[in-house]
């Protein structure tokens, strides 16, 4: 039984979430130079976008940073989640768990500031990283992403008893073989989901990138942010439409893949 007002709130909430996005997409095809004013169907803003080299460069950089950060996050977050879920109690486990979850609950301005201070201090002490740019943004995003991956992997492993790994040992698998043939396939869906999440977080982040990037590390969100500061342009509409299309396609493909597996 769903009361009427509950149902009404659901539709109101969905409309609130989707209406601005839907309008944004619709008006991306408007020829008028004022965004959100209909000037007849036109693809001129997409063409303008294709000629905007600064944005394209930022987008390419963002994709590379996001890919690298997500991969690093899966490696380190996966290891963290596995250690937390499968290594039983050990000295320092509570501390490890707290640190692993910290980036999830820290305000991003704090995380951003703290990472910048670290990079500056490291550079002062060791000369590395020399200046700030794509690499430092990547490390910052990997730090945030690994926290998400660790949580996803840990809860996935915790939901399965250790009995599968024990059964493998019982059947003669060495601990390493048991990890490779049982634990890793068990973790695989959460690693894939974690990678995608970390990738999205990186593609969406302004604050961490603002702190940890220098002039050479302008990612797409940072570029978009400075464009939006000056107000909306139809070009942004077009860009947003393309990004939406990409997100929709990715999710669609993922959905198909998941359906196939079942």
């Amino acid at each position, binding site marked *: 039984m769903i009361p009427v007002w509950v149902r009404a709130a659901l539709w109101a909430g969905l409309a609130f979430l989707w209406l601005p996005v839907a309008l*944004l997409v619709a008006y991306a095809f408007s020829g008028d130079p004022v965004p959100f004013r209909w000037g007849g169907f036109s693809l001129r803003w997409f063409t303008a976008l294709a000629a905007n080299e600064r944005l394209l460069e930022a987008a390419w950089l963002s994709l590379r940073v996001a890919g690298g950060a997500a991969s690093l996050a899966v490696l380190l977050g996966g290891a*963290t989640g596995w250690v937390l879920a499968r290594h039983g109690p050990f000295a320092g486990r509570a501390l490890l768990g707290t640190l692993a979850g*910290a980036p999830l609950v820290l305000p991003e301005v704090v995380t951003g500031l703290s990472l910048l201070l670290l990079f500056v201090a490291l550079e002062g002490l060791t000369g590395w990283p020399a200046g700030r740019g794509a690499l430092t943004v990547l490390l910052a995003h990997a730090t945030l992403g690994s926290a998400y991956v660790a949580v996803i992997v840990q809860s996935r492993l915790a939901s399965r008893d250790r009995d599968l790994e024990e059964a493998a040992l019982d059947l003669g698998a060495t601990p390493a073989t048991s990890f490779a043939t049982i634990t890793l396939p068990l973790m695989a869906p959460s690693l894939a989901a974690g990678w995608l999440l970390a990738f999205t977080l990186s593609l969406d982040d302004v604050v961490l990138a603002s702190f940890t990037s220098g002039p050479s590390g302008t990612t797409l969100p940072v570029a978009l942010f400075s464009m939006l500061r000056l107000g909306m342009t139809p070009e942004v509409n077009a860009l947003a439409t393309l990004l939406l299309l990409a997100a929709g396609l990715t999710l669609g493909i993922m959905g198909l893949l998941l359906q196939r597996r079942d």
Partner: protein
Amino acid sequence: MRLALRLLPGLWLALLVAAPLLLVGIIALSWQDESVPPYSPPWAGQGLNPANLRLLLEDPYYRDALLQSLTVAAGTAALCLLLAAPMGIAIARAGRWRGMLLGAVLLPFWTGFLIRIGAWIGLLRDEGWINTLLAGLGLTDGPIPLLYTDGAMLIGMVHAYLPFAVLPVFAAATRLDPMLEQAAADLGATPGRAFLTVTLPQLLPALAAAFLLVFIPAAGEYVIPELLGPPDATLVGRVLFQEFFQNRDWPVAGALAVALLLLLIGPIILFQRLGRAA
């Protein structure tokens, strides 16, 4: 071998989570100067500097920024909850539409939040869709200022954080036993009363978690107030950016970060307790 495997995440977290936080604390107690980087640490001869943290308490500018951040975060969280609670429950009970509806709520999260803020800029600005519509209907003579107001900022924040609030409510509502409401009905409760006395009490921890899940990140929000809020909306995230990037006063920025953390530590611990209970 197992020890080495434990050390890898340990070292990573020590270097990129623990050490940076420690540094923030140190900077907050350092002295501003003209060097590069623009501070001198306590061990450089001048000792600890309590002035930065004291400044936050004594200067009404910073005090108000902290206070206003908490107010805006609480308002955002409350508005989110108002929508998210019925949404989460309705989706949990939507039967075979459940997956699709949940996807519809979460998908905007994947579309990038800058884009969604951009959409609101386009809707709310003077030549934007809403003002054009109102003028077209002959309801207004000139554009009414909608963008760069507290209202625009709140709308943007709710839009950005709503999916986060729906998730815990949805998760808790799916775990509810539908028989309990039937039992309440069998014992003579009207549907409304059954909801208030049976369903709602069981959802309280999830509602609290949803509130905190929005409140904690919203308190430090920088981008949305910057793009949608009035120029004089002095929230802690904005002030921190300003001190750090424009005034190059790293110690005060550090102190602001420390203050924000201290204010949020209670809600964070409460949130983690709720998470563990669920």
